């Protein structure tokens, strides 16, 4: 086998909320890897900040037994994504690898997809992105720089996936589990993010780390009532104070 085979994998991510410390290393790594424009104070004040992955803080319990929790939220790559059918020009669609992808050059900027997204992980370029001159040569050459007027969102580091698959094909071998790492996963100090193939129909000898985690007792998905069927699976926070130990989100 020498050509790149497409659609063989179904990518997903497991986020162990119990391990997340809310350190935001993933946010920074993503920003650098994916040429996400710099967020100035003015942008945040106008609620236009961009972060393909963000760490949300939420409170659990009633005062005084209240606890701060962290949960990283990124594009859930829903199998049944509300953002996909509404795009009039197929700029966003579901690809055979189980990912919800955004094609920048096809986007006309209706922002309809962003309305549909219940996780609010889609971002619109209100302005042409600018970087300080000293940053210009630091941009990732493998990632398109998005111009103004289009949507963008987490791509599961598509450039890394493509490179990994290509390398395996070049060396005429199967892709190894863990060979492809997303930028956020690479940066996570507590190993809370695990990216990998989660296709249940894939006959594999080695199940892979992400795949072995999705059937965990603690596994859940966000907003299940909307039936979006995300490919990002969360593992619930373990709360020793609580009966049973595991607290849901």
């Amino acid at each position: 086998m020498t050509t790149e085979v497409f659609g063989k994998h179904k990518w997903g991510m497991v986020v162990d909320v119990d391990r997340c410390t809310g350190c935001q290393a993933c946010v920074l790594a993503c920003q650098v890897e994916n040429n996400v424009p710099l967020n100035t104070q003015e942008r945040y004040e106008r609620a236009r900040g961009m972060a393909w992955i963000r760490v949300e803080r939420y409170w659990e319990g009633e005062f005084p037994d209240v606890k701060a929790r962290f949960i990283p939220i990124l594009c859930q790559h829903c199998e049944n994504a509300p953002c996909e059918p509404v795009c009039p020009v197929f700029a966003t669609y579901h690809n055979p690898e189980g990912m919800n992808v955004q094609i920048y050059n096809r986007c006309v900027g209706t922002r309809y997809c962003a309305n549909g997204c219940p996780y609010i992980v889609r971002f619109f370029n209100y302005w042409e992105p600018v970087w300080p001159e000293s940053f210009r040569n630091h941009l990732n050459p493998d990632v398109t720089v998005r111009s103004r007027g289009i949507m963008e969102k987490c791509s599961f580091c598509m450039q890394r996936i493509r490179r990994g698959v290509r390398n395996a094909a070049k060396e005429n071998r199967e892709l190894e589990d863990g060979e492809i790492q997303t930028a956020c996963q690479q940066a996570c100090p507590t190993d809370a993010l695990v990216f990998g193939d989660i296709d249940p129909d894939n006959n594999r000898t080695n199940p892979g780390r992400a795949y072995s985690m999705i059937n965990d007792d603690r596994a859940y998905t966000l907003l299940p009532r909307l039936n979006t069927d995300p490919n990002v699976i969360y593992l619930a926070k373990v709360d020793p104070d609580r009966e049973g130990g595991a607290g849901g989100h």
Partner: protein
Amino acid sequence: MASLLEFIKEKHRTTPLWIKALAPVLLLGGLAVFAVTGAVTAFVITAWLGQPIPVLGFDQTVKQPIAFPHTIHAGTGLFPSTGLPGQFIDGLEMDCTFCHRTVTSQANAGVPPVALCSYCHKVIGPEENPELAKLRKAAGLTEEDPSPINWKRVHRLPDHVRFVHEPHIRYLTQHPSEIRNAAPGVNQLSEALPSQVCSTCHGDVASMLEVKQVEALKMGQCVDCHRENEAPTDCTVCHH
């Protein structure tokens, strides 16, 4: 007879005013509609065929800082020298990958560093060739300060396209029947050399004194070729 003539005259005189008035407008309006339709049709047809109109770079040559002849380096036969008019030099039949070294392993084919040029041109080529003098200056072989050569890019894909040479070379060397614009006989080979593959997109560069883009390299072309060869056509293969 006279009365008939009168009748026709009368009839003509009473041609409804609206027809008279409408005629020039219809004529002008018709022409305008025709022109607009024509322009739109031309646009649509070029989009369908994936063939842009030959302006703005396509099918045109670019003046390079040094008149580098691909002919002499890669071609076979006698070719005119670019620096010394009237002189002819035998083609060297060099392999494409001799200079474009990363083409079989990486995304970019790679423009060779000037050191690679000067490795040969330290000795080869007469002093009086002005083009070689520029090269030697750039390579720091002369007294003057060296300065980098600002090669002009001929094949440029839009920023939102991620083209990787390596898998394309790999596939075509193993499937020589898919190579286009190739030298005779290449398509019958069981395995081709990387340098026999380039012509598919770049044409016969070896015969070009000044390199020009011969294929439109529009998305339609990429997609067609991918479909014919059962390569993936998912958008994310090239756009991310």
